[in-house]
């Protein structure tokens, strides 16, 4: 049984069918990429699976159980985490606090205990501060551990979101265009980071435009075009698929 199964997913915005009858499965432990031209429905697909949009019809199963209609905060509890194409960093907090909030569900969130400085709660929080710093170093943000989020450059913020997502110790991690806006060197670093994350056993699903990176790290690839599934398979299979070449890879990318 695959970790994530999507069956016949449809999403209509008014008259526009953003996602049409999309079905695929993601096996546990793989790096699975979703590619396609702009407007193909990749981010919409992500938003559907992570509970931000509700599907018009279709089923989404995580670990065998249907998660359609579940709000995002419940999905976090099931072990699903994500980053965003348009950064969603809390600029009113420090970098470390952003990461700490990723582990939100693992903590004692009681209001009264928080107010009273309950010792067990404080201890756990201190431990979390250290864990957050370690996570920031893990994603390559050594120099920013003490920074305010608002003071960090774009590339660093993208990694910060990844650190935040990892803080929840997720089983399934969605990365929405992690390399967008990054130069080749930074992209290579993200590439390597994703490998390290996958090596830990976390299943990674990513949306990306950078073909070199996608071909490099993906175990399987899903190709979308105009909201519909165009092809699915290993990197080699997709590269050789004539439909894909016609629709997408014809224009050279990376």
């Amino acid at each position, binding site marked *: 049984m695959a970790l994530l199964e999507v069956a016949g997913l449809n999403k209509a*915005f008014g008259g526009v069918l953003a996602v049409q009858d999309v079905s695929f499965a993601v096996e546990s432990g793989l790096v699975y990429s979703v590619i396609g031209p702009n407007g193909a429905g990749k981010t919409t697909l992500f*938003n559907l699976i992570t509970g*931000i949009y509700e599907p018009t019809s279709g089923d989404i199963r995580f670990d065998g159980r249907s998660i359609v209609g579940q709000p995002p905060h419940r999905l976090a509890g099931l072990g699903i985490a994500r980053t965003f194409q348009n950064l969603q960093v809390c600029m009113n907090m420090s970098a470390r606090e952003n990461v700490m909030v990723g582990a939100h569900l693992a903590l004692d969130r009681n209001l009264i205990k928080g107010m009273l400085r309950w010792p067990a709660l404080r201890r756990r929080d201190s431990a979390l501060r250290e864990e957050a710093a370690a996570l920031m170093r893990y994603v390559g943000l050594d120099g920013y551990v003490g920074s305010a989020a608002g003071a960090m450059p774009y590339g660093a913020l993208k990694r910060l979101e990844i650190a935040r997502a990892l803080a929840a110790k997720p089983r399934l991690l969605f990365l929405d265009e992690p390399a967008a806006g990054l130069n080749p060197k930074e992209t290579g670093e993200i590439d390597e980071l994703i490998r390290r994350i996958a090596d830990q056993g976390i299943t990674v699903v990513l949306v990306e435009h950078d073909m070199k990176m996608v071909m490099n790290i993906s175990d399987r690839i899903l190709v979308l075009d105009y909201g519909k599934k165009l092809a699915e398979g290993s990197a080699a299979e997709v590269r050789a698929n004539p439909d894909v070449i016609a629709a997408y890879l014809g224009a050279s990318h990376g």
Partner: protein
Amino acid sequence: MAQFLQFLFSGVTVGAGYALAALGFTLIYNASNVINFAQGEFIMLGGVVMVIFIHAGLPLPVALALAIVLPAGVGILIEKLAIQPAKGADVVSLIIITIGASLLIRGLVQIWFGKGTHGLEPFSGHAPISVGGASLQPQSLWVLGVTALVVVALWLFFSRTVIGKAIRATSCNPLAAQLVGIDIQRVLLISYALSAALGAVGGILLTPLTMTSYDVGIMLGLKGFVAAVVGGLGSGLGAVIGGLLVGVIEAMSAGYLSSAYKDAVPFVLIFVILFFMPRGLMGAKVTERV
């Protein structure tokens, strides 16, 4: 039956005033996504300025013109001095700024004009007209008639004139409007001026019936906002329907249930709407892009 008609008349009359206020809210909201809390003060200014100039002996047409133009000027001032400098601030900040502006206006009027209540002579006499056993004030007909004219004029303005269309374009998509050469700043200024003028007209029309004083703006403005929300924020037609509806419901509740709680009715109504139909009667759906 007579009683019902009585309540209906008073409800529709004051409802027309709410409708004008609601149109003002809608106009500014459409142009700039701001809820202008000072809208109520424009209503107050219309009545107050009219009273001042009539008492000063100015002829009616002149006083009337001033009572519309001066509040419009205040509207422009608010846009220039309060809204423009705060460009890009979030919704809540802008609301607070307009609250500040309303306090400023009200306070200044209180200092200068005093706390007293003043009235105006009805436009065509005091003699009530008997309709179905209920008595209708001639002034009510003025209120309804002028409001209807204003609504038609606005409709023509927005659908037939270039400026009107420019305003509509700006409210749809400011960036696109700019790119086709529309001067957004001018659109905003016109919107605020027009909105203020609408409020002022309402104030002038209602004063002979309900008197005016430095603090009538708060309640009228808030109720006008309720009307705008009931009708669907952003919809002109909704604003008019909402205004009439709020006025009638308020009058009916005051008449049949409890007159002490008359002022609470619109606010209870807004809860009802916000709970069950947040988009109002004619509002549009919005999705946020993530």
